[in-house]
């Protein structure tokens, strides 16, 4: 099946596949790490056992997700070389140092303090333990900062020159790190990670509330998640709009594809809500559109002219259909999150936050939607950068390593099999942890202290330890 593909197509499939899997874990662990820091801080401050319980509950989930993020991330750091070595040679002088800073200031920090955060509380005391938890959370945010700087430079390259062998050479590091799209992309992504986590936490809370409305831990989770949604979802929509305007300024072609504007609109462009992109005929079939609204949103003027893809040479055009759809999925989900937040706020004001079963069910349905939105957003921005790796400067087809198609095909198949097996199992274990009742503990498997030598002993003494709170103390 894969024989008909070129090495380039296969390498692109491989990168898309591995990076898509990878982004799921950081998107979740950035949010959970911060959530853990908040929970532990609240526990230290209030001595409310519910917070400690939640800390230990989410700690185990975090450990599994973080492990998957680490191993899928190592793959990314080597794939630039194995499949995209020309890209690596040319952009290495600029992107390499940024990634080196990510490793030095983020990866080591996370990994160095993770052990203490997960099982060091009794050994180092509450104060240092809290410090370790904060360092892990800070590390995840630092990691996001550097890697988004890298990605943003590929989207909006500045501060460079090109030497005689075709390498990008740094001229101004400040400009490179804080390139034009970086601040917007960073805030947008970090908020997306927080939203994703809030949706997952909300769904887990809702699930346990459906089983037992009085479950204190579930109530706390649900309430915290819904507060997060109502604060962050509207903020994210505003930030997303700013990000879009930034894209319009620096990567107008991407916006044309997002909007589905094959044709130029000299007297104000319509906002196409829905339609079927037809790349052959270069038009949107069955379009449902609101006249001039696109000009209003993008240019804040109903009659502002908007250029279309007809002004761009065909070989510079990104795949419109993919971007058109992924963008709409992201927007739809963004507003659904806002809707859920508003709904919960309304129920909360009425004092019925924990009574509305329909709201709980909606929260469960929305549970995985943060991931979908994150992926849709990344598809929009990454596919929208095509056919370039460094926007406007280095074509994807010129970035490839000198590798044979069969080698890429074999490794692609291996990655697909291994990822579905390994990360499928991991996701299953995470879901099982999330499904585990919050009020009681199944000590034999799931509540055993993570990575301690004790599981055997606990199983035998489980009968003596009935309450969930006791179970947690041993899980620290």
């Amino acid at each position, binding site marked *: 099946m894969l024989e008909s593909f070129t090495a380039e197509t296969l390498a692109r499939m491989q990168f898309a596949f591995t990076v898509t899997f990878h982004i799921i874990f950081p998107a979740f662990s950035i949010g959970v790490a911060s959530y853990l820091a908040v929970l532990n801080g609240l526990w230290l401050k209030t001595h409310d056992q519910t917070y400690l319980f939640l800390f230990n509950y989410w700690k185990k989930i975090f450990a599994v997700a973080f*492990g998957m993020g680490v*191993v899928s991330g*190592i*793959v990314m*750091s*080597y794939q630039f*070389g*194995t499949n995209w*070595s*020309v890209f*690596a*040679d*040319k952009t*290495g*002088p600029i992107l*390499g*140092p940024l990634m*080196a800073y990510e*490793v*030095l*200031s983020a*990866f*080591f920090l*996370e*990994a*160095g303090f*993770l052990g*203490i955060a*997960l*099982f*060091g509380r*009794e*050994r180092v005391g509450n104060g240092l333990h809290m410090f370790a938890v904060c360092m892990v959370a800070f590390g995840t945010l630092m990691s996001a900062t550097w890697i988004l700087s890298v990605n943003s430079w590929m989207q909006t390259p500045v501060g460079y020159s090109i030497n005689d*062998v075709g*390498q990008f050479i*740094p*001229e101004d*590091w400040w400009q490179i790190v804080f390139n034009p799209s970086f601040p917007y992309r960073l805030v947008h992504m970090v908020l997306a990670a927080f939203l994703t986590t809030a949706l997952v936490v909300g769904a887990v809370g809702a699930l346990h509330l459906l089983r037992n409305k009085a479950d204190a831990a579930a109530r706390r989770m649900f309430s915290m998640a819904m507060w997060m949604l109502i604060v962050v979802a509207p903020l994210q929509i505003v930030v997303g709009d700013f990000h879009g305007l930034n894209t319009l300024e620096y990567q107008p072609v991407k916006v044309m594809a997002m909007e589905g504007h094959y044709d130029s609109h000299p007297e104000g462009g319509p906002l196409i809500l829905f339609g079927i992109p037809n790349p052959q005929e270069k038009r949107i079939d069955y379009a449902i559109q609101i006249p001039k609204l696109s000009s209003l949103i993008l240019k804040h003027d109903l009659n502002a002219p908007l250029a279309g893809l007809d002004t761009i040479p065909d070989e510079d055009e990104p795949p419109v259909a993919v971007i058109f759809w992924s963008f709409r999925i992201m927007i739809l989900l963004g507003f659904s999150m806002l809707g859920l937040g508003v709904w919960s706020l309304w129920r909360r004001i009425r004092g019925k936050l924990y009574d509305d079963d329909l709201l709980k069910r909606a929260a469960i349905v929305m549970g995985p939607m943060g991931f979908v939105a994150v992926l849709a957003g990344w598809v929009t921005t990454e596919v929208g950068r095509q056919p370039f790796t460094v926007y406007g400067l280095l074509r994807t087809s010129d970035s490839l*390593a*000198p590798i*044979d198609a069969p*080698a890429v095909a074999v*490794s692609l198949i291996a990655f697909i099999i*291994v990822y579905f097996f*390994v990360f499928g*199992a991991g996701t299953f*274990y995470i879901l099982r942890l999330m499904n585990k009742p919050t009020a009681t503990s199944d000590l034999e*498997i*799931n509540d*055993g*202290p*993570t*990575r*301690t*030598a*004790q599981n*055997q*002993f606990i199983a035998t003494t489980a009968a003596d330890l009935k309450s969930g709170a006791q179970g947690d103390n*041993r899980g*620290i």
Partner: protein
Amino acid sequence: MEFELSFIWAMIIAFAVLTYVILDGFDLGIGILFPSAKSEQDKSVMMNTIAPVWDGNETWLVMGGGGLFAVFPLAYAIIMPALYMPIILMLLALIFRGVAFEYRWRTVRWKPVWDFAFFAGSVIAAFTQGISLGALVQGIEVANRAYAGGWWDWLTPFSLLTGCAVVIGYGLLGSTWLIMKTEGELQARMRGYAKWLGIATLGFIGVVSILTPFKDPAYFQRWFTLPGSIFSVLVPALVGLCTWLLFMGLKQNKEAQPFLASLGLFVLSFIGILVSFYPNIVPPSLTIAEAAAPDSSLRFTLVGTMVLVPLILIYTAYAYWVFRGKVKPEDGYH
């Protein structure tokens, strides 16, 4: 100036790779020795000796790869396609091994599956790292700033030999680490293994050292002219010293000495490789200076490295200190 900066960087990358090799060496070694566990308790203890530190250890691998990308992008761009298969295999193996740490506690029925994944992942990761080393030593064909060989060039009897050498060597590190971190029957068993693994490791070091100069006349020359010949005297002498310390430590039931002596053997072997390579970064023809990124990249990264690496070493050492001492089955990590 350019030479000096790139040389400093070559030393930093070498330091990162060496740190990786000795840190992940012992924890891959535990995976390699995993089937020798006689009971669930043994397995738990073995894994718990490294559970709090393994992802920190593996981060040095990312530092090696990421650092190479940052300061020697050309070397990175040549080595990765040249070692395509072993590197992809290593990454896949590390995935299986890494997730096993968490997964095995999350299931009863599939525990044997993840235990096997931990073992096989560790063996394959070690083996492919050894193969990569062998492939580098035997030389990589370069033309027009790119790898010019085929995708099976790495596979030779020599690279298979170095692959086996690394598996055995990591096994030695793992067994001596366990001598330091465990007690009783498990510790006694590890003492027994360490002796044979030590003998085998020394055998491999000997064979690889004898074969290496024949891979490239330049290696021969570097070892037998000044300043390389200083090392030709020094390195074997120190290997002898470490060997003596290792076996005396085992014989006298010392706790930490066998591990430290094994680390010494690794450090010395690594220094031996550096002497053979210098001034190349990718034998036989790409030099450190040629592969280096422009000075502005080297300088920008160096500033942060000088500040952050010492900090990293401090808090990594602190994490090891927090989890110091013997790992006992009955207390675990409280």
